[in-house]
């Protein structure tokens, strides 16, 4: 128990510091947030055009796709704001920058992932919320569920990023491959999983768990089935455990490095 309180304090401390560091450059902060909002809107715009021509796609309508976008953007934003460094794990390991986290008395994985905040991701959080509320009538009623599912989605994304990033422990520099994998996860999560052929669908529930980032939580928001909620929670817990396992196993092989670095 003492440990989790300590971890929570650490996470809160970093959140504060990241925010302070970000606000050192106010103009850049606002510009990046607005830029990301526009970027997300563009993506949704194409779906809007599509649904002007056909009413539904494999049982999904514009409201459904907007829900997917809402939950993915919100989860993506949360993950990148709170655990921004999870998406740089490969790089941190390969460059030897893990040293810093290993000399301090905190859990190195938690410490590593929370020590960076992505600024434009605040725009994603905002976009996710707005799109979800606009996706259908009386959406604000299911806002608590939306936030819970967003948190789970964020955890799945973070854990996935840690797993692929940890490949650096074994193959030297997994930066490119990790980036590809995370991009694939995000891209696939934005499409309703039912539009894919069964073989691909299996992949999207396992190797690249995009279904648990987009379609599964979105379907829960449309129709709350308890067994699906349990599945979502169980999968999240599972992938988080796997991520921690992979990272700590790799840590034994860590080779450090001598690159000259400064902290951001």
């Amino acid at each position, binding site marked *: 128990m003492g440990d989790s309180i300590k971890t929570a304090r650490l996470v809160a401390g970093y959140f504060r510091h990241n925010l302070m560091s970000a606000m050192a450059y106010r103009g850049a902060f606002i510009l990046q947030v607005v830029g990301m909002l526009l970027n997300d809107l563009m993506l949704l715009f194409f779906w809007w055009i599509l649904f002007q021509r056909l009413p539904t796609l494999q049982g999904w309508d514009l409201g459904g796709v907007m829900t997917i976008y809402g939950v993915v953007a919100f989860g993506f934003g949360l993950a990148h704001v709170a655990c921004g460094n999870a998406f740089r794990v490969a790089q941190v390991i390969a460059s030897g920058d893990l040293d810093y986290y290993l000399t301090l*008395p905190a859990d190195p994985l938690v410490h590593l992932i929370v020590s960076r905040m992505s600024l434009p991701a605040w725009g994603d959080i905002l976009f996710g919320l707005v799109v979800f509320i606009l996706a259908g009538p009386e959406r604000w009623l299911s806002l608590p569920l939306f936030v819970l599912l967003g948190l789970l989605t964020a955890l799945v994304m973070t854990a996935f990023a840690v797993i692929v990033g940890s490949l650096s422990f074994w193959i030297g520099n997994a930066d490119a491959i990790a980036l590809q994998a995370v991009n694939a996860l995000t891209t696939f999560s934005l499409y309703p999983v039912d539009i894919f052929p069964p073989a691909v669908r299996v992949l999207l529930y396992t190797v690249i768990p995009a279904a648990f980032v987009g379609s599964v939580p979105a379907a829960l928001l449309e129709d709350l089935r308890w067994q699906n909620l349990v599945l979502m929670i169980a999968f999240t817990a599972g992938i988080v455990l796997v991520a921690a396992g992979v990272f700590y196993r790799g840590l034994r092989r860590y080779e450090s490095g001598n690159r000259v670095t400064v902290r*951001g």
Partner: protein
Amino acid sequence: MPIITVSELAKTFWSREKQRGLRGSLRALFRPIRRKTEAVKGISFTVDAGERVAFIGPNGAGKSTTIKMLVGILHPTSGQAEVLGKIPWKERQRLAYEIGAVFGQKSQLWYHLPPADTFDLLARIYEVDPSEQRQRMDDLIELFEIGDYLQVPVRKLSLGERMRCEIAASLLHRPRILFLDEPTIGLDVVVKQRIRDLILELNQQEGVTIFLTSHDAGDVEVLCKRAMVINNGEVIYDGRVSTLKRDYIHSKTVSLKLGQPWQGYDGPGVHTLKQRGYGVKLQVDTTIVPIEVVVGQLLARYEIVDINVDNPPMEEIIARIYASPREPPQAG
């Protein structure tokens, strides 16, 4: 009672070898050649509480690898080590509360924030009580004279100012051992001296055990009583810095200021380095002729205004040790 015990500690790295050019890259892709590098080859030593130990060696000798194993960053390939009764790579987090580490090439300060903010965050990580932190900060600010730029973003500090803050940051939690990896790297002479003074004060006032790596001979000479020389992953000397000098110094320089013109010195083992007017500098090989004999003869023959007998600089001594790695390790 030793607080650091190392026995037969070894670390081997594996790397992929690549030949030159694109062809080499392609070959490495399909038929990689794995190369074994024994960075540290089974070293053993102990360090007592309150000691100031220099771990010296050229680039790539295994200094950083050893220090990284002692703070728990790296897992060794074989061998044992205990720091304050803990195995570093197994009890890393608990050990971290009791040791401090400064890596000259890696900053722990936040680049865009003033040092004061980093200190707050570190205090939180080390779970330093807020009132205790304030007291400690006041002491460190005074000792390191960093009060003036505590609120200035780190990116605007000079390297010397930053390094003072780095060391202060690593002392917030009152560590019992301070590991410093190249703490004076890239600093100018004056700042180097200041950093050395601070480390010395820390050792004397707070009894902090100092374990530093450096390839700067000055660090060793000024800071440490004991030196361990490492080369190619092996400890080739472990003993007092003064003994190190005695054992490896086979020559002295004699500087003279004469009351009459220089007419030369003919005897074995003496070599004129420089001569201008009434001033002359001689190098004496003490394995051939004792220094007393040379000085005696000089005094008998010349009218001498001033005389100085010096050891060669530490740099030269260390260079000599590196050049003769087969020299048996000496006990201090």
